[in-house]
Every structure is written in C-alpha cells, then in structure tokens.
C-alpha cells in the first residue's frame, strides 16, 4: 500500500514554527479592529438620526429646557395646511424623476456598452459628465437657457411664437433632476451589462433573432437588478434634493418635502422644529421603506444571472442604420442636458448681466471673478471645499475599505450590521444630517461639541457621512472580484486577518481605494445641503457661498464660483483618470 518504491527521500526540512500573534484581553486583534469599525460607524450614523427622532416627539426646540414628549408634532404636520399637497407633489416629482432617469439611462447604457456605436468611448465618458455638477449649478444653468426668459426659450418663442414647455412645473423639475441623476443609473446598468455573459446574446442570434430583438428579449430584461437598485437610489435622492425644487418650484407654489423643510426650518417667521423633526422622520421612514422594497424586488436575483462558462469576450451588436438614432439621442442628452447649461454658466460668469434682452458681449467682465477672489471669505470657501473634499474623500474611502473588508471579508459576527450601517446614510437626507449633527455636536460631553461645531471637521463628518454609501458601493464590487482564495491563502500561510489586508493584499486594494477617493471627492465637492446647518463664517464652502451670493443677487459670482468648482472637478477627475490608467497598465 505505501507506494514509495524508490527510497530516494531528501532530508526532511525542519518545519518552521507557526507565527505567534499577541492577544488583547484574550481577543485577537482583528476582533478589536472589527468592533472598532462597527462602533465607529454606529456612532457616526446614529448621531444625526437620534436627535432628529427625539426632536420629532418633543414639544419645543431641543435647545429649550424642559421639553415634554408629545405626538403633537405629527398631528400638526399632517393637519398642516397643504401638507397633503406637499406629499402629492413630492410623490409626483420623485416618481417622475425616477422614471425619466431610467428612460434616459437604460437605453444609453445598452447603446454604449452593448452595441457598435460611433464615438462609443467618447459617449461612455460624456454620459457621466452631469454627475460631476451639483444639481444646484445644473438648475441655474437650465433656468438661464430653458426658463421662461431663458436664451433657448426666447429663441424658440421668436420662432414658434410660444414656448412649448414650462420649466417651472413638476415635469420640468423632474427632467432637470433626471438629467442630473441619470449618470448614476447609467453606471449601474453599464457595469451590469459589461459583466453579462455575451453568449446569451450569441445564443439568441443563432436562434434567429435580429439585433433589436436580441436587445429586447435578452439584454434589457437582464437589467432588472441594476434598474431596481438605481431607481431606489434616484427616488430617495429626488425626495431629498433641495436646489431644483427651490429654484423652480417655489415661485409657482409647488412645494415638496425638501422645500417644506427648508422654508419651515430656516426661513419661516418662527421655525417649528417639532414639525421639522416629524417631517424628517417621515422621510427617513419612506427611504428605509424603499430599501425594504428593493430587497423584496430582488429576492430571486438568480433569475438574472447566467451560468458563466469560460469567460466569453463580449461581442457588440451591429444596429445598422438604427445606431444613428442612438447617437442622436445621446448627443441631445449630453449637449442640451449638460454641455449647453454648463457653457451658459461659464459664459455667464464672464458677463455683468446675462439676459436675452441684451447682447451679453456688451457687458463682458471679470468683475465676477474679482469679487470671488477679492474677498478673503470667498477664497476661503474654495479652499475649505478643497480641504473638506480632499481630506474627507481620503478618510471616507479608508473607512469604506474597512467597512467592506469587515462586512465582505471577515467572519465577524456582526458583519451584516456593518454593511447596513455603511449604507444607511443613503436614507438620510442631507438637511437632516445637517440638523441632526448640529444637535449631536451640541450634546457632546465636555464641550467637545464646541470644538467641532461650525468647523471644517463638522463639515467633513457631515459630508463624509453622506458620501460613505457611494464609497462603500464603489469599493465592494472590486473587493468581491478579488477571489476569496487570495486571502485564504494568506491566512493559511500565517498572516492573521489584519496582516492579510495590510501587508499581503494591501496593494491589491489600492485601485479600488483610488476609485472610491475620486468618487467621494466629487460627491463631497458638490455637496452642500448639510452645510446649511453645519457651516459657519470661517467654514463656508463653495456650495453655501453660492447660495449666499445667489440670495444677495450676485448671480455673476455664483456662476463664477460654479465655474471654479467645475474646473476643479474636471481637473481632479482628469488627473485621477491618468493616474489610474498608469496603475492598471502596471
């Protein structure tokens, strides 16, 4: 039975001893690390939520002593004049936005990823531009073009005698918001499409299906998971977005949840914090509910994944003449949706006044920039934005990596909880994060709050919290692409959990990390809603300064700042793109 028929055994090496790892209070260090992550996330996420919940059942502002618990706020909220209308508007707006977003994103994703398209690469990039601009800026841009007295509108009026659209309406708001959010849905669908097994389409073709048929019988149905996921995301984003409803809706009396919060919270004659809390809680509930819905819709997701055999090279479908329709559609989206408005904005920033009634070239000026760069406070706000976005992006991405590793790559008992916590902020509107954190800081022990309150740290925390989910979302897939066996191998060869990811696999995580940094940087650079409560004179950021300037009527400077912000974003993304390319080639 022993098969050693030739006795040529080399001297057996002495086995090296297994490495020893110190334990803290009997627990391995990875456990400490994992609990630390959990605790940190828990605190971070609960900080804004808890005060909001408390406020919602308190009969007076949190800061006034002797508050009594009462349901009155909810009663008042629901009996509030026109609250029903607000809910209805919000629903219409959110649903409209979601539908439009999908209508834009899905076909484009299919066209760009799955079919032979002229300038395919260009479009792939262009599709994502709107994402880099805050919908505040996009809103401005759109008004200057498509508003009742916008350039395009007046042009059209001169031509047709009337303007066939009305921007200041729920559809108008929805379209603008949809254009701003489409990139998100697009990215989800595009990734799914890139992953999908090409032989599914080949099979359809061999069965006799023409390209269009292939698209509709095979490609599109497979997109359900990304569609569901992104629509949930878009829906909750449009429920909480402030800028577009404020710019479009307010004048014509269309108020939605966010404007309701804004006017009742910040602007009203005497702000009713109770109602504010109640409304916030309501939004929280809605968004949380949505997440549940999503889970339900994606229950048997296997129905949308195919058995993968040997990796099949994706083959792009040849649409023939139809492709030009696609090209046209995408061009319209990119040009009219993003390019023109941004162009208009940039142009605006170089003129004193910008109106169809007067040739803007008469009033060319750099005064707007002089003002922006002339006042320390404004320059400061640009630096602040850079600081917040820069530091924030690094910190958040790092945190996200940790969260992903714990939730996806450990045997930690509470790993699912970690994931939920990391994704939870998605369901917390920015304003609420602002208000909530404001109180949270106020209640920090030993006046620690005083140190944080109104400083950049506060903003980094607030914005970071907002950006955490997208960071997590961008890292998780690339970590999951690293075979589990890679870390198993490290474990078996003697690295403990911590060491596995610090020394052995660290380098493999860097691309994912870098990707997350870019994404979070961009999101944090354009973020502003939490700052409305968290910022102070010396911690103003581009977003708040823009609002401020806008309120004062320095629209030119607003445009100038917007231009600066876009420039920064473009530069950063471009640079990062180059670096990343360098990486992946290596």
């Amino acid at each position, binding site marked *: *039975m*022993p*098969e*050693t028929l*030739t006795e*040529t*055994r*080399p001297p*057996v*090496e*002495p*086995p*090296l*001893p*297994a*490495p*020893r*790892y110190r334990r803290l209070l009997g627990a*391995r260090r990875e456990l400490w690390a994992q609990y630390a992550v959990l605790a940190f996330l828990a605190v971070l996420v609960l900080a804004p939520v808890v005060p909001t919940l408390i406020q919602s059942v308190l009969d007076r502002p949190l800061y006034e002593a002797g508050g009594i618990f009462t349901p009155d706020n909810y009663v008042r909220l629901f009996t509030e004049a026109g609250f029903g209308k607000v809910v209805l508007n919000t629903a219409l707006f959110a649903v409209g936005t979601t539908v439009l977003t999908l209508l834009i994103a899905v076909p484009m994703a299919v066209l760009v990823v799955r079919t032979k398209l002229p300038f395919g690469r260009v479009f792939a990039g262009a599709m994502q531009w709107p994402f880099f601009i805050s919908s505040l800026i996009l809103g401005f841009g759109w008004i200057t073009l498509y508003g009742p007295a916008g350039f395009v509108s007046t042009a059209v009026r001169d031509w047709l005698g009337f303007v066939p659209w009305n921007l200041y309406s729920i559809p108008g708001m929805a379209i603008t918001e949809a254009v701003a959010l489409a990139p998100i849905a697009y990215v989800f669908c595009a990734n799914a499409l890139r992953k999908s097994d090409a032989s599914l389409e080949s099979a359809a073709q061999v069965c006799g299906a023409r390209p269009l048929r292939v698209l509709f019988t095979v490609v599109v149905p497979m997109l359900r998971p990304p569609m569901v996921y992104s629509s949930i995301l878009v829906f909750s984003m449009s429920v909480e977005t402030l800028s577009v409803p404020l710019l479009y809706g307010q004048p014509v009396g269309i108020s939605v949840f966010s404007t309701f919060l804004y006017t009742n919270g910040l602007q009203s004659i005497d702000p009713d914090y109770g109602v504010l809390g109640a409304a916030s809680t309501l939004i929280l509930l809605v968004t949380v509910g949505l997440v549940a819905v999503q889970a339900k819709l994606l229950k048997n997701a296997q129905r949308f994944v195919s058995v993968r055999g040997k990796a099949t090279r994706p083959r792009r479908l040849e649409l023939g003449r139809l492709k030009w329709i696609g090209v046209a559609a995408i061009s319209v989206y990119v040009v009219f949706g993003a390019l023109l408005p941004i162009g208009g904005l940039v142009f605006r920033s170089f003129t004193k006044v910008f109106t169809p009634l007067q040739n803007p070239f008469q009033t060319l000026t750099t005064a707007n920039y002089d003002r922006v760069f002339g006042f320390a406070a404004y320059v400061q706000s640009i630096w602040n934005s850079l600081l917040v976005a820069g530091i924030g992006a690094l910190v958040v991405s790092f945190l996200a990596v940790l969260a992903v590793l714990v939730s996806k790559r450990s*045997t930690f008992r509470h790993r699912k909880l970690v994931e939920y916590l990391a994704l939870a902020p998605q369901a917390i509107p920015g304003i609420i994060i602002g208000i909530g954190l404001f109180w949270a800081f106020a209640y920090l022990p030993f006046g620690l709050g005083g140190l944080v309150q109104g400083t950049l740290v506060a903003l980094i925390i607030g914005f970071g919290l907002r950006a955490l989910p997208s960071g997590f979302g961008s890292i998780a897939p690339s970590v999951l692409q690293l*075979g589990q*066996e*890679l870390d*198993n*191998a*490290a*474990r*078996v*060869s*003697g*690295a*403990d959990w911590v*060491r596995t990811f610090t020394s*052995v*696999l660290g*380098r*493999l995580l860097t691309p994912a990390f870098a990707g997350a940094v870019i994404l979070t940087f961009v999101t944090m650079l354009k973020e502003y809603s939490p700052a409305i409560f968290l910022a102070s004179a010396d911690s103003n950021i581009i977003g708040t300064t823009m609002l401020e300037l806008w309120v004062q009527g320095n629209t030119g400077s607003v445009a100038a700042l917007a231009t600066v912000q876009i420039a920064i974003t473009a530069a950063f993304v471009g640079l990062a793109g180059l670096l990343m390319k360098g990486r992946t080639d290596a």
Partner: protein
Amino acid sequence: MPEVTVGQLHKKFGSTTVLREIDFTIRDGEFFTLLGPSGCGKSTTLNCIAGLERPTGGRIAVGDTVFVDSAAGTFRTPEERNLGMVFQSYALWPHLSIAANLAVPLKIRKTGKEEQARRITEALDKVGLAHLKDRYPHQLSGGQQQRVALARALVYSPSVLLLDEPLSNLDAKLREQARAWLKRLQTDLGITTVYVTHDQDEALALSDRIAVLSEGDLLQVGSPHEIYERPAAAAVAAFVGRCNFLRGKVESRDGGRAVIRLEAGGAVVRVASDTAVTAGQEVTVAIRPEKFEVGPANRPADAANLLRTQILTRSYVGSRYEYDVRLGKQVVQVESTEPGLSGEVGLAFAPESALLYPDAALPSEDAEELLTLQV
C-alpha cells in the same frame, strides 16, 4: 510527521447540514483523498482542517496539537496551524513576483534573508521552476502557476499539505501528466497530504487511501483497490469507476449466492453475496462494464449469468471499445476489445464479479434520466 485525526466533524451553514459526523484518521506521510460529487462537502471538510471554516461540532487534531474541539471550545485560527494549502485557482498574489509570493510566509515567520533565499530556491527547484522566480503569476502558464502555488505551500515545510482540486483548472491533457508528477513529488517528500477532488480517476491514481463523501456523509474509507473492487455502498460503486445498476427482486438463495430476477429484461441471475438478503426483497445488482464477457446471444445459458441485449452505439476509447447496449428499457454499458460487435449480443458475468446491494440504490436523478431510453 504527525497524523491527522478528524472526529465527529459536523458542519452546518445556517440550517442546512453540510457535514454529518465525519470520522477519519490520516496516517503520517499518507496521501489521503476526499472524493465525492460536487457539493458533497469536500472543500468544507478541508477548510475545517485548515481553519478557514469553523466546524459546528467535532474535533480535529494534528499529532497531539488540537486544532478544534467544539466540546472544549478550542479553536486555532488558520495562521496558527502552520499548514500548507493549494487552492483550485492557485490563489497566487498577482501583484507579487513568484519569489515574492514564496517569501511572504517566510517573512511572516521572521526568517533570515539568506535562509529565505535558500528555502525559496529549494522549493522552486522541487517543482522545477527555479528559472522563473522573477516572473509574475500572469506571465506563467496554468500548469506552472499550479506548481508555484504548491511551492508556496511547501516553502515553510508545513506539517500537513492540503490540496483543493489543484489540477481541475488544467486542461485535460496536462492534468494527466501533472497528476503523475504530483504523485512522484509527494512520494519523494513523504509529507502528509490531504487532497480534494471530484475526479475519481485522479483519486484512484494518486491516493494511498480515499474517503468517499456524499451529501455530507462519509460512505467509505479505503485503498483505491478496495474502493473500486468492493465498494461499501451502491453510491460508491456509482461514483468510483463506471458501473451498471440493475434492479431486481430476490427469488431465493442457494449457499452464498442470491438468485435474482432482473427488472430490465427479466433474466434470472446468480450473484455472490455475504449480505443477508431474503426472498422477495428489492435489490440492486451492480456490474462494472469491464466485468462483462461479450459473446453471441444464443449460448447455453447454464454456463454463467447471461443477459440478452442489443447493441445501441459503439465508441472507441483508445485501445478499447465501449458499447451501449439495450437491456429492456435500460441502457447498459459494456467494455470490450472487439471492434465489430453489433445487433444481438449476450453478456455473461461471473456471480463473483457482480455486487449486490440490498437497498434499491440508484444513481443521481440526472444519471437515471440519462440511462433510460425514451423510445
């Protein structure tokens, strides 16, 4: 080198039980294989030994160091077990050169520089790849990667070597050669080895002993020869080597033989059996294709057991022929060196060369469907 003892190993994922009371002992220096169809729990068992999975119950020890003992609540993490492991996908770290890959476990063990260098070259020599030490994994062929993975598992001369389907990513041809090579290497090193595969040829060819698993149960542990010639259960016979299963009813016994009327074709056969079967009992007769002796259909039936069949298809398998023949509605597989058979043939077999299983055991649903004729 120590021996590996696995006792009452039990593993649940959530509510589904994946391993049920697995017991076996791997002798020092033995090449021990876990064999079973996909999903039967092989990798889980191996991962429990490696410490990558935490068993729900049971005990695992190497020599006298206890790795897991659910009773005593002891559990050693993988990094504390000092084992070598090779994964199906090799799991080489793509960002590290071959040498660097091998260096990692040594660095972790704080080995001196030259000691490191020595061990690395030695390990790479063993697998005949010393000349590629500065390449990166993606610059190697599958076969070479697989050997590097092995070298990385050996470089710190662990006490036990664990292999999870290390060959299954190689293409058919290379797999055979790699198999023979691996066998020689292990024989030379004499390191205790636990090997996981679902390929029975591999298992037979490589192993000193084989443990056959099925749906979380340990069916049989034995030498390849035992497993093949005296499978303890129909499932084993079905999985190891090809085997025909003929259902039937016991009519009577004479001496050490049972007289059985077969369902398919209705012939009466005699099968040697030590297991006590009683008249009227449902049984399964298992016969391997090469145990049949093919001859003319019209032959004095008294000689031995004889089945009348028609030839369906013939396939050439290199130096031998495989025939699918029809027995009633069932397909029976027969091996023969005769190329030209066709039409009616008689299959003879000796009572001793057939196996008898009391339960009406049958192959998988899939196999069942594949072996019954529609027309």
